[in-house]
């Protein structure tokens, strides 16, 4: 892969253009990583591709090897793997609360201690998620309670 960087003070904003013989999964992954840097996530819904603003995402969840992206209004699907998203979105305030769920801290409405050292998380849209025992400790640490 050839990388060329052109520094031009006359350009008003940074522009990235990808030139390739065909759109391979590697190229798609690269584009999706660049979009995360630009606070956008490529998602799909009913066969259409959308560019979703990361700030809108409440949480992400894997189910039957598929990754779903939940916003206040709709549910989308993404081809990215959970561990990739966890790395890419960590800087945007996302963290894991269970093996299958990644959520954004700013969209949490309240927390409540649950049985077996778990934490019941109420999101701003009223949905409830459970932070499993292992990740509940990490959440407490993240909040400075440990």
């Amino acid at each position, binding site marked *: 892969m050839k990388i060329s960087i052109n520094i031009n003070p006359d350009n008003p904003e940074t522009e990235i253009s990808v030139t390739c013989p065909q759109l391979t999964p590697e190229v798609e992954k690269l584009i999706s990583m660049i979009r995360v840097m630009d606070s956008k996530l490529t998602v799909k819904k009913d066969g259409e591709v959308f560019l979703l603003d990361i700030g809108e995402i409440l949480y992400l*969840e894997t189910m039957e090897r598929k990754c779903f992206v939940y916003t206040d209004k709709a549910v989308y699907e993404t081809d990215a793997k959970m561990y990739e998203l966890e790395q890419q979105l960590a800087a945007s*305030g996302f963290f894991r609360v269970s093996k299958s769920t990644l959520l954004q801290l700013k969209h*949490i409405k309240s*927390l409540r*201690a649950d*049985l077996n050292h778990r934490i019941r998380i109420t999101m701003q849209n009223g949905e409830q998620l459970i932070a499993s025992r292992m990740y509940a400790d990490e959440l407490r640490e993240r909040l400075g309670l440990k």
Partner: protein
Amino acid sequence: MDKNRNKKIIDKKSLHDFVYTTSLAFSLQTLIATFVMFISSSETSAEQSRISSIYATPGFLSKSTLLQFFIAAVLTGIIRHIFLSDLILKIKSIALRISLMFVFEVIMVAIVVWRCNWFHSVRVGHWIGFVIGALPCMIAGFFMAYKSECRENEEMNEALRKKQQEEEKQS
């Protein structure tokens, strides 16, 4: 993508996990314990005395007593399932859940002890002593647990608000 459909799958999966792990473990434990005791029990009084002395049990391990143990264990399991899961009751407080669970378990065990006549020499005075002794402990336990639960929730939500404000300032 239908959001409700996704949620139903999640609920079904977590319900399945819950029932699978807890009830299977509990039922297997009870069944194995009862089965082992059942095959080692005897209806002859000499054999029962011998088993009682080996296992240091208060009464005879007759087959009918073991069946009563089994029924009591199953009832305990049902009570625990009801109070420790969201299947039937949606109680938010852990302290209230556990307190209610113990109250119902104690009532159930008391009824079984009384109806099955497990301890032959239990008299009314014993029951009164049991209630007087257990009730204050249970009430005090509930209030202590409830207070610490409320404090923990308050601390967590306060820390969450602080963290959210910090992240908002940074962005």
